[in-house]
C-alpha cells in the first residue's frame, strides 16, 4: 500500500492519465506501423515480379506460411522426443522384466536442430564470442589508452587486423582448433570455431573506443587526480574508467552489431547448428520452399540483431552518466 503514496508512483500515474501521453504513444505506434506496412506491401509487389530458378520469389504470405511450418516442425520434433523417451521406458521395463538387476542405460535424446534451437544456439554463440572479445578488448584498450607508447606499438597491428573478414579467418581458426585437443567441456569444434571467429572480428571497435576514451580524459580531471594524489589503481577506477565509460559502451554496441553479422557468416562455414547453418542448408536443399524459409530466417536474424542492440542500449542508458551522449 505504501507504493501508492510514493511520489514516483504519482508521477507515473499522472503520466498515464494524461491524454497527451496517450496521443504521443498513438502517434508513434501509427508511424512505426505504417512504415512496416509500406515495407510489406513493397515486398509483396516486388516478389510477384521476380522469377528465380527456384520459382517465384516468396512474398510475405509464403514466408508466413513457412513460419507456421517451422513451428509445426518444432512441435513434431518435441513429439519425436517424447516418443523416444517412451520407447526408452519400454526398453527399461523389458530389461527389468528379463533381469531385475539389469543396468538401465539412460541415454539422452539426440534432438535434431529445430529452427528455435538454432536461434538459441546462435544467441549462445554470439554472446559467448562477444563476452570473450570484451574481456580481451577492454583491459587491453585501457592499457593502450593510458600509455601513448603502447598505443604506438599496438596501433599498426590493430589497423592490420581490423579489416580482416571472418571468412578469411575461418580456415586458419578451423585448422588451429582442429589441431588442439579439445575436451568435451569446451563444446563442439564448430562452436569453438564460430566463437573464435566472432571474437577475432568483433573486438576491434571495443578496443579502439576504449583506448580513445581512456586517452581522452579531460586534462582538468587528470589534474584533480594529481592534486589528490590518487594511487594508480584509484586513479583508474575513480577517474579514468568512469570518464571512458560512454566511449566504451559505444564500442561495445558496435562490437555486438558486428559480432551478430559475423556469426551468421561463420556459422555457415563452420557448420555450427545456428541460423547461419539453417540458411545455408536451405540454400543447399533447393526445394520450392527454400526461398520462403530463407526469408523467414533473414527476418528473424534482423529482429534478433535489433533486439540485441536494444539490450545494449538499455544497458548503456543505465550506466551512462553523460546525458548529452547520443543514446538512440
Amino acid at each position: 500500500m505504501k507504493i501508492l503514496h510514493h511520489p514516483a508512483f504519482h508521477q507515473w500515474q499522472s503520466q498515464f492519465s494524461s491524454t497527451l501521453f496517450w496521443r504521443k504513444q498513438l502517434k508513434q505506434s501509427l508511424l512505426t506501423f505504417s512504415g512496416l506496412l509500406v515495407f510489406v506491401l513493397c515486398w509483396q509487389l516486388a516478389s510477384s515480379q521476380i522469377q528465380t530458378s527456384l520459382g517465384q520469389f516468396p512474398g510475405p504470405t509464403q514466408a508466413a506460411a513457412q513460419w507456421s511450418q517451422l513451428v509445426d516442425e518444432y512441435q513434431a520434433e518435441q513429439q519425436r522426443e517424447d516418443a523416444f523417451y517412451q520407447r526408452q521406458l519400454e526398453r527399461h521395463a523389458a530389461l527389468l522384466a528379463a533381469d531385475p538387476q539389469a543396468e538401465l542405460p539412460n541415454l539422452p535424446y539426440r534432438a535434431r536442430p529445430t529452427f528455435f534451437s538454432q536461434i538459441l544456439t546462435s544467441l549462445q554463440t554470439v554472446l559467448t564470442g562477444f563476452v570473450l572479445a570484451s574481456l580481451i578488448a577492454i583491459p587491453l584498450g585501457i592499457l593502450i589508452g593510458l600509455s601513448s607508447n603502447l598505443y604506438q606499438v599496438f596501433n599498426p597491428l590493430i589497423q592490420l587486423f581490423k579489416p580482416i573478414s571472418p571468412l578469411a579467418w575461418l580456415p586458419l581458426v578451423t585448422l588451429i582448433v582442429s589441431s588442439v585437443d579439445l575436451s568435451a567441456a569446451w563444446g563442439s569444434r564448430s562452436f569453438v570455431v564460430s566463437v573464435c571467429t566472432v571474437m577475432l572480428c568483433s573486438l576491434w571497435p571495443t578496443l579502439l573506443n576504449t583506448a580513445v576514451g581512456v586517452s581522452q580524459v579531460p586534462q582538468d580531471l587528470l589534474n584533480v587526480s594529481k592534486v589528490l594524489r590518487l594511487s594508480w589503481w584509484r586513479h583508474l577506477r575513480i577517474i579514468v574508467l568512469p570518464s571512458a565509460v560512454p566511449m566504451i559502451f559505444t564500442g561495445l554496441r558496435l562490437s555486438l552489431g558486428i559480432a551478430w553479422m559475423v556469426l551468421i557468416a561463420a556459422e555457415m562455414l563452420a557448420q555450427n547448428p545456428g541460423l547461419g547453418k539453417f540458411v545455408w542448408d536451405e540454400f543447399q536443399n533447393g526445394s520450392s520452399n527454400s526461398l520462403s524459409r530463407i526469408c523467414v530466417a533473414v527476418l528473424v536474424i534482423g529482429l534478433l540483431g535489433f533486439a540485441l542492440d536494444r539490450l545494449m542500449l538499455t544497458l548503456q542508458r543505465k550506466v551512462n552518466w553523460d546525458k548529452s551522449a547520443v543514446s538512440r
Partner: protein
Amino acid sequence: MQKTHLELTQVGISFPTEKGPFVALQNVNLHIKKGEFVSLIGHSGCGKSTVLNIVAGLHQATAGGVILNHKEVTEPGPERAVVFQNHSLLPWLTVYQNVELAVKQQSKGKKTKAEIRDWVEHNLALVHMSHALDKRPGEISGGMKQRVGIARALAMQPEVLLMDEPFGALDALTRAHLQDSLMEIQAQLNTTVMMITHDVDEAVLLSDRIVMMTNGPAATIGEILTVDLPRPRHRLQLADDPTYNHYRHQVLSFLYEKQRKVEDLGSKRAEKQQQKTQASA
C-alpha cells in the same frame, strides 16, 4: 614576524618549441607568509596560471624552485589544494561524493566514517551547498559547481589554497557572496591563499598583497602592492574609502598604462596606412 610559508625563488619556465625555447616566465621571486592572501593579476597570457601551476606542482619550473614549509615542491598534493577555473568536478559523482573523495584521500584512515560525513557536510555548509548534496554536477548551476570546487579544496585542509580565477564565470551577485564567504573562511582558518584574478576590485578587496605581473614572454613580477586595509572588510563601506580607491588606481595604472598590451585597433590601421603610402611614394 611570521615566518615565510611559501617561497618562490628565481622561478622561470621555458618550453621547447620548433623555433627555439620559448621563455614564459623569468626570475619570479615571491615570499608569502602564513595566512597571507596574495592575488596575482596581469593581462591575459602573461603567465599567471603558469605560476600557479608551478606552485601546485602541475608544471615543473625549468629554473629556480618553490619551497613550502622548508620542503621543496616537486609534485602536486592536497596540501596545495587547487580550485580550478573550470570547477573540475567529477560528473559521475554527486556533490557530496566529490568532496568526500578529497576528504577520504587526504584523511586516509585518520577519520571515522561519521567524522568524514560531518567534515564533508561542514565544508559544504561553509559554501552554502547543503541543500544539493545528492545532485550531480550536471544538475546544478555554474556558480554552485564552483562553490563545490571550493568546498572540496577546503576539505583537504590545505596549507596553501590555490585559486585560478575561481569566480570568473559567475555573475556579480554570486561572485559577491562567494567573495564574502571566502573572506570569512580565510579569517576562520587562516589559510594561505594565492589567487589569480582579472578583477581589480576583487584583488583589492580580498588580498593582503597584490602581485602584478608584466606581459609575456619572459614575464616576471612587475610590482607588488601591499593592501593595508583593516579586516574584516565590507565592500559597501570600502566603496567610498579613499585608500581603497587609491589602491585601485595604482593597480589600474600598472595594468593599463605601464603594461599596455591591448593596442587600439584604430592606431594600428593608421600605422599600416602610413607604411603603405611611404612604400608607394
